[in-house]
């Protein structure tokens, strides 16, 4: 791998991240999708907790879950389904015939998506905090940052893997994303501590949000540790393993997808 090739791929990452970041400023629909929608859920679930007489930390759990759900939506709709849309628009074949690795395209999409979504997640968190007057008690900032960034790394790794898989599976990517969206809210404990799901939590830990969110709750709220699923250190370890596994699988499936595309000639044709 020569220097020129590496520079070209770095440029490609930047190039592909650009529309993601720009889209955040130009299309207001994303504001509705990524801030107002999660916020409405946050208000609904927070108010239900309030009505049921839950402690303030539970309201915080719901707000944090709502904020992190923006990343899940981003991964589902703008990562997993993305290569499918790229194929439909004809971009995919231009990416394949460019002298770069497709991994750079997906990395660019991820980084752009992460940046844009972080702003929206922050907005949900801030507004939710304001509405429900939340109290945070920061336990360990290093761990907090580590859990947050590892969650994103593993989550977008999963998104990169799904992007190729969706394309290999076929035509109705939209339905797949639609299918996964809500059940993941449930099994990841987006609005309640995943500890209450018992053993299901171990399976849903394959979704990085599950352990990531649990870790963040433990590190941000007083009652977080009481309702924690696993210890934060174990969760960090799981996130590292997930990041590596998903990154490797993403590269593997991307190669497989490209090979299938070239072998069967289907993946660069619209409507196949």
């Amino acid at each position: 791998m020569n220097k020129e090739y590496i520079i070209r791929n770095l440029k490609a990452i930047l190039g592909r991240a650009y529309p993601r970041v720009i889209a955040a400023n130009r299309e207001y629909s994303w504001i509705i999708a990524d801030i107002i929608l999660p916020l409405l859920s946050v208000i609904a679930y927070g108010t239900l907790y309030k009505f049921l007489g839950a402690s303030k930390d539970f309201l915080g759990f719901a707000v944090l879950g709502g904020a992190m759900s923006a990343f899940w939506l981003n991964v589902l709709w703008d990562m997993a389904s993305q290569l499918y849309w790229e194929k439909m628009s004809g971009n995919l074949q231009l990416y394949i015939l460019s002298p770069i690795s497709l991994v750079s395209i997906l990395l660019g999409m991820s980084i752009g998506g992460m940046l844009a979504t972080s702003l929206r997640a922050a907005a949900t968190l801030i507004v939710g905090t304001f509405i429900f007057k939340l109290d945070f008690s920061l336990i360990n900032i290093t761990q907090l940052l580590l859990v947050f960034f590892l969650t994103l790394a593993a989550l977008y790794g999963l998104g990169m893997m799904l992007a190729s898989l969706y394309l290999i599976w076929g035509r109705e990517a939209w339905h797949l994303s639609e299918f996964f969206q809500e059940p993941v809210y449930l099994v990841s404990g987006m609005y309640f501590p995943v500890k209450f799901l018992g053993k299901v939590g171990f399976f849903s830990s394959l979704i990085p949000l599950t352990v990531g969110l649990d870790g963040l709750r433990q590190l941000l709220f007083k009652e977080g540790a009481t309702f924690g699923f696993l210890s934060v250190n174990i969760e960090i370890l799981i996130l590292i393993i997930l990041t590596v596994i998903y990154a490797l699988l993403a590269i593997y499936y991307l190669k497989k997808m490209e090979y299938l595309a070239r072998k069967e000639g289907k993946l660069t044709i619209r409507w196949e």
Partner: protein
Amino acid sequence: MGIIKKFLNDFKSSFYLGWKIESNWTDPLLFFIYSLAKPLSSAFILIFMYMIISQGQMNEMLPHLIIGNALHLYTANVLFGMAWTVIDDREFYETLKYIYISPVSMFQFLAGRGFAKYLITTISSFIIIIFGFIFLNVRFTPIASWYIYFPIFLFVGSISLFIIGYFFAGINFLISRQGSFLTQSAAGVFLLLTGAIFPIDTFPGFLGKVGIYIPQTIWIDGMRKILLGDGWNSFFINMSINRMLSMLIIENIIYFIIIFLFFNFSLKIARQRGLIDQRTMG
């Protein structure tokens, strides 16, 4: 007679089309699972939240929550189904313009498409309620003559779903694909304001009263009263079921008139501005 026959025919074909679009992308089993995944997940999130806080103790609120959520699914799906049809058929299938110039009225066409969603939702709502019965110890303690009120309330309330659906469909004729998010947001707002998962008075002041003027609030609380013996919104708690029914009918009529005018106005504006076949997806 001819008019009714034509209406039914048009309705039938748009319903059939809606059903096909919703379901024909996969085999029936997968479609069944897919249709249930979303509503059941959101129902279980609420049930879990409830059980965690009440620490497994069942009290009288859980049945109210389950019925509220099951009925809210209708609002969300019919509203989204009808409104999304406008964008989907306009921009993805690019058939809206052909429907517009055909003798089928847009009003009937959307009713048929909404009805396809309505039927699919019925399955998931039914499953949520049955689940509550079997696993969560939900018991019905209906009012006298519930078997008369239940179908009447179901019917009148269902009409209100379609009326609201026309409102958002009308908006979507005028705006770009952001409409899909607007519609989803609207479903979220309905969840908050109609007392589906907590009493409307949980919100302070004005926000806690808005729901009274939304037909779905009366519908959901009325259905609770019919099936469980009481509702949970203080405004309706002492109101007789007959009075609630009259109120629902009156609100339906008022909304129907306003929204019918708005819908036709939207279509007119869309035609004037050339929005019937606009493409905003690219």
